[in-house]
């Protein structure tokens, strides 16, 4: 009997701990859901993620299989509800597989960019001696217009989607580094950091375990907003022929290919255009909503 008692109390303890951790997430989620625009954005993002993950299920045709007898079918054609392109490839299937690519490229480049940006930001915010050097390096990166820097990097590395990821991530580093540095500068002056030092914690431990968790909110917001920029830039680079190479189904490349048929079959440019617009809009709106939801000074509850 004693055994069963302890077991239940342990279970209760575990449940409580879980609920405590969830509380913060639930609170943020609730605040986010009060923002109607953000909910709309969230729905679009969820749809995109589902499409991307289960692309083969949603795509009715092979996205790169040509069918020249059915070329340039319009929207609402039999069997191809979004029509076909000049090689007879199903536009809907290409959009679905394109969602996969833009999501992967977005996550990849933002992830890499965050990694570099957070590392640089933490170090330069915390160590005064390195601050000058790192921030001048960041200024140097800032001096290039973003898309030009990406083009420069791709020109050096060669054209491929992987290089697009690298180029966009490098371009994300300076902004992220500055955001993180700003947070670190204000956090490191807090007394609890001195208190941690007085307990004998090393600088690395303080940075990673105590400073970083305190600046997650701005990082989350930055990452969401950056997803939008990354997806847009991927499309732009592919449109210029620097990213995805044919026959890869990529939204920007689809617009580029559809350009020549703008007057005969406008859906070839309009459909991927709308897809890009919706996704970029969604990430921006959700980023905005998250910023409001994570800001403790914005009291949406009352």
């Amino acid at each position, binding site marked *: 009997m004693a055994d069963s008692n302890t077991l239940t109390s342990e279970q209760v303890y575990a449940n409580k701990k879980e609920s405590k951790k969830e509380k913060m997430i639930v609170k943020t989620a609730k605040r986010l859901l009060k923002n109607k625009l953000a909910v709309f954005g969230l729905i679009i993002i969820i749809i995109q993620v589902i499409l991307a993950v289960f692309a083969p299920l949603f795509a009715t045709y092979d996205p790169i299989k040509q069918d020249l007898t059915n070329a340039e079918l319009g929207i609402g054609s039999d069997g191809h509800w979004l029509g076909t392109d000049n090689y007879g490839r199903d536009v809907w299937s290409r959009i679905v597989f394109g969602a996969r690519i833009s999501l992967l490229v977005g996550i990849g480049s933002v992830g890499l960019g965050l990694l570099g940006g957070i590392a640089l930001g933490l170090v330069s915010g915390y160590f005064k001696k390195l601050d000058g050097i790192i921030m001048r390096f960041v200024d140097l990166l800032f001096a290039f217009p973003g898309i030009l820097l990406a083009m420069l990097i791709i020109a050096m590395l060669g054209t491929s989607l992987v290089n697009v990821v690298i180029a966009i991530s490098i371009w994300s580093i300076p902004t992220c580094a500055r955001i993180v540095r700003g947070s670190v500068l204000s956090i490191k002056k807090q*007394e*609890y950091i*001195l208190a*941690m030092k*007085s*307990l*004998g*914690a090393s600088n690395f431990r303080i940075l990673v375990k105590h400073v970083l*968790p*305190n600046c997650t909110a701005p990082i989350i917001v930055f990452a969401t907003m950056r997803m939008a920029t990354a997806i847009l830039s991927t499309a732009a680079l592919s449109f210029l022929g620097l990213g995805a190479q044919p026959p890869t189904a990529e939204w920007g490349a689809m617009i580029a290919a559809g350009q020549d048929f703008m007057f005969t079959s406008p859906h070839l440019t309009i459909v991927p255009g709308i897809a890009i617009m919706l996704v970029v809009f969604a990430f921006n709106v959700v980023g905005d909503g998250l910023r409001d939801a994570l800001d403790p000074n914005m009291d949406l509850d009352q």
Partner: protein
Amino acid sequence: METLLDVNNLVTSFRTADGKLPAVRGVSFSVNKGETLCIVGESGCGKSITTLSVMGLLPDNGEITEGSIYFQGEELTKKSDDQMRKHRGNDISMIFQEPMTALNPVFTVGYQIKEPLNLHTKLGKKEKKIRAIELLSQVGLSNPEKVLKKYPHELSGGMRQRVMIAIALACNPSLLIADEPTTALDVTIQAQILDLMDDLKDDLGMGVMMVTHDMGVVAEVADRVMVMYAGHVVETGKVEEIFKRPQHPYTKGLLASVPNVDDEGHRLEAIPGSLPNLNEKITGCRFHPRCPFAMDKCKVDAPPHFRISDKHQSKCWLHEEVDSHEYQHKAYS
């Protein structure tokens, strides 16, 4: 009694735009096991910098330029940062002034109490939890298991300061440094926290070094008192001697500026003038511009420490005369 901490002629300077400025100018003191030393003085007189020097946690532009700090026979000023880290939180701990900001807002109390245990011990997960609960009940928090899971903002100021003390005591330190531990608390909680620290000191046999500017706190907890003014120790002595027979004019001034509730007609006597800036050059005794007893000699030469009794010292020329008078008196009789 065993000497725990022995500080000799400590000089701590700051690099500023005006050059190197000493904030602590040749301070010497010692703390014994099981003893409470109170450092008293106005804001900006170097109290906190003295404690931070001992911890090795000076701001980036500060450094110990002279003197030695012996802790349990080991010289601390020559230790590397890594070696110092092993002492911090392990055998020297610190409590801070603001319990509101000294706890990390994004972690639970439990996580933060276990942090020094993570750093200095190799206890298992369960042992750490047991120790954390033990610590929280030791500092008088009821329902410690519940407190473990709370975030700092869910606790009151007094509870947070208790948590801070629990964190500082986690590894059974032999020296506890408290930098104005009760300034941010209201008076009833102040008394509780001071009693708690006193009890814990006796239980664990720690030496306590407490910085304060509240003479009431000093009277409550101190065994010995060290009065600081503009980076110098001006008077040290046992608490009874300091309160009953203050020798240095500055100590007298400090005691006269404590409000007296019982006496309605009592007027507070402030010490005229203000604390000199770090870069102000004052010849002779640094207190002479504000001292009501200043003599010509005070403006030229800095006074040494004069012994008044066994453990009572005062850094004032007035006592030279007293000394010699007494000497003459004795010689005549």
